[in-house]
């Protein structure tokens, strides 16, 4: 029997040491290829850190716009502050728009944000939550399967992960493993985002011919833009969510003429027909942006997120950001589905939903692609619009 125990002990240690060594190799590989939590959710993680800091340092009344990459691209917090100040108000706005988060992930993040607000006994004067229709579709959710657990591992807190382990040990332990042993990066995420590229091709890429001259020029503009940007704004080179820019980006007035010219040319080329077609098809493929077949779980998650936020905000509204209807035209059934969802959000949360998809302040040439406002006229126009729209809540 002692001999047996020795063998079992040897087996036991072999498994532990072997797995530890394998996991060490995995961490080595992933770090070497830059596949870490920062690569997956860099802007979110930086935003979370920034939030902790701002809750201590920023004593003004706070405004937050929370949403997707459309918010990230379309809202300038510092410009908003300037507009409100010009109207006699004094607030501090922050951009909490994050690309790639569907409402389920946004809900987890919302819980963390609310935890921080409660921990610092702070409130928001105004919270605008973007409802992004195409981020709430079944297609979008299916496309996010590979990152569901990694994102959850990074957005849930320890207590929630423990609850998950108790409630569903299989999934809970996977999430715990991803969080504590893999720095938030699962095998699925690595495969999908870091290894799969040579084997992936969207049907759009296969079906639409690109204009080589435009592509080449855009590459030249990129090559010129980034060093120039870094030179002009050296403090913002290493951040995805920059505290000093309040989660937004440089104001148009802060950019040099040269940088402005590069951007202007880029935005002009970006609107080339074939690029817009490619972008539209990609959005259809990955997000069902035209037909909008909503995912029930994502709609519920969005509603829950609004409920989670409500207690920390004096004023809260859900908004839909401008839509480029030159390229994105929804059939009547999709519009009806959207209206139904909007009505449901209002009914179940008691929060007003404002539809800014078509507003006079923003025109279709202010987009950089089929969905995002560009960083010049688009962002400025929409930010000004929001300031004017909500000034009555912020200016005494």
């Amino acid at each position, binding site marked *: 029997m002692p001999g047996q*125990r020795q063998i*079992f002990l040897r*087996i036991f240690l072999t498994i532990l040491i072997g797995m530890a*060594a394998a996991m060490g190799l*995995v961490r080595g590989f992933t770090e070497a290829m830059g596949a870490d939590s920062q690569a997956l959710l860099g802007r979110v993680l930086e935003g979370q850190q920034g939030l902790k800091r701002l809750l201590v340092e920023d004593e003004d009344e706070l405004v937050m716009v929370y949403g997707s990459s459309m918010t990230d691209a379309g809202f300038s917090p510092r410009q908003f502050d300037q507009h409100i100040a010009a109207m006699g108000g004094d607030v501090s706005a922050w951009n909490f728009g994050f690309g790639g988060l569907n409402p389920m992930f946004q809900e987890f993040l919302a819980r963390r944000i609310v935890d921080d607000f409660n921990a610092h006994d702070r409130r928001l004067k105004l919270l605008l939550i973007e409802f992004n229709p195409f981020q709430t579709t079944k297609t979008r959710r299916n496309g996010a399967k590979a990152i569901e657990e990694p994102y959850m591992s990074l957005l849930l807190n320890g207590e929630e992960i423990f609850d998950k382990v108790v409630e569903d040990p299989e999934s809970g332990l996977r999430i715990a493993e991803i969080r504590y042993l893999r720095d938030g990066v699962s*095998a699925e995420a690595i495969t999908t985002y870091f290894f799969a590229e040579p*084997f*992936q*091709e969207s049907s759009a890429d*296969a079906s639409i011919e690109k204009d080589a001259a435009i592509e080449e020029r855009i590459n030249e503009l990129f090559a010129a833009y980034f060093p120039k940007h870094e030179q002009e704004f050296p403090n913002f080179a290493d951040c995805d969510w920059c505290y000093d820019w309040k989660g937004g980006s440089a104001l148009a007035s802060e950019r040099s003429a040269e940088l402005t010219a590069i951007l202007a040319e880029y935005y002009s080329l970006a609107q080339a027909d074939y690029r817009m077609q490619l972008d539209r098809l990609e959005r259809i493929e990955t997000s069902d942006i035209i037909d909008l077949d909503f995912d029930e779980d994502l709609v519920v998650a969005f509603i829950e997120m609004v409920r989670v936020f409500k207690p920390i905000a004096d004023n809260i509204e859900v908004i839909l950001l401008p839509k480029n209807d030159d390229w994105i035209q929804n059939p009547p059934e999709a519009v009806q589905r959207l209206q139904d969802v909007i009505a449901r959000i209002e009914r179940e949360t008691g929060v007003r939903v404002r539809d800014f998809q078509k507003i006079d302040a923003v025109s279709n040439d202010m987009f950089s692609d089929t969905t995002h406002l560009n960083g010049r006229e688009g962002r400025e126009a929409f930010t000004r619009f929001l300031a004017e729209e909500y000034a009555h809540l912020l200016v005494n």
Partner: protein
Amino acid sequence: MVFNTPIFFVFFVVFLLIYGLILVQNRPRLYFILVASLVFYGAWNYRFIPLLVGSSVIDYYLALAIAGAATAQRKKLYLALSVAMNLGILGVFKYADFALESTASFLTLFGIEATLPTLAWVLPVGISFYTFQSMSYTIDVYRGDMEPRKGLVHFTTALAFFPQLVAGPILRARQILPQFHELPVPTWEGARHGFLLFTSGIVKKTFADLLAGPAAVLFEADGPVSLLEAWTGVLAFAGQIYGDFAGYTDMAIGAALIIGFKIPRNFNLPYFAVSPVDFWRRWHISLSTWLRDYLYISLGGRNQRLRNVMITMLLGGLWHGAAWTFVAWGFFHGIIITATHWLGQLKVFATFNKSGSKLMTVLKWAITFYLVLIGWVLFRAHSIESAFEIIGNLHTFSGLPEASSVAIRVTAATLVTLIYMHLQDWFVIARGEAFEQKKWIFWPVLVLLQAICLLVGAPSSEFIYFQF
């Protein structure tokens, strides 16, 4: 609970700790294996534990009754009860809805619109495996191939033994039961081989998951697919199903071996087969030998071979799932096996067969592999119509395939993966023992392979055979 998940890692480590380091007596260990196995099974759905335990209890007592029966008629009656119970469980849980839906469809042919109620019950995981395993015990006892063994806990534990519970191999009582009466003492050499098999299995499972994507391009396509995509899809599915199932059973055999239990091999390089008969000697060996021993031979074996082969293969197909595609798959294999037998009797082919020329072997391999691939189309397609459409795609030259660089890369990766899996298995079978001796290479390679499997994966990692 799936082998390649953190929860199984935790489960197995805790199991080893208690089984190997804390418990010392055989009986507590036996009880502990049973409890651990039921926990393992209950992780899917604890409601089906009574079904598993219940069927093992009934078969255990029926086996004793068969052995103790005074007359042949009594023996037959007890055996019939066992077979009826096991097939009844399978029938209710697995085939009832299929039968009802098929009946309703059949009636519509005569203009009768029948709305038959369906059960829509959840299929208990592993039911096809453990009912066959349990049934083989009573049949063996009836045939006098083994004596019934006293010990209900031993029998239940053998049936519920967690490594092989949910997806086989389908063990014979005489292979596994004695190991629970005298719990095996693990050896370091055995455990080391277990680690090799487990790692080999996890690599195959990882590759199988990666092949699911190209396979889906064909089988889940909404529109037309190119010739290249069609062949890539079929090859990918061939790799997926092999990696998935052979990978799972390698992990099962490896996990069992680590704690000292010996489970026979279930796959033997099936895509190296040189005839359909040879394929079934290499693919899911525990099922094909079960069907041979308990069905084909019971039907009369070579007497009326055509009929018996067709019945065996049709039921073998149906064993995999309650759908006409599986029946068609079984039928197809029945036809090609029968054709192989028939061709083998022709003088001209017999001469070729005996010639042993390499060219002939390659030709036979190519034809067999082609037929197996066609079979996989029937197996994987959503309907028979869809299968025929895909088979049509595979043989329709509609101009040059759109061989974009991405498509070629996918095809190349699929082929490399498929070949690698077989080469790896060949290496484990032919060179595994020698490799295990070279500990300075062996362990780093195992760690590296585990790391690769931890590094890559695909979102859907359920085992295909769990549904059977």
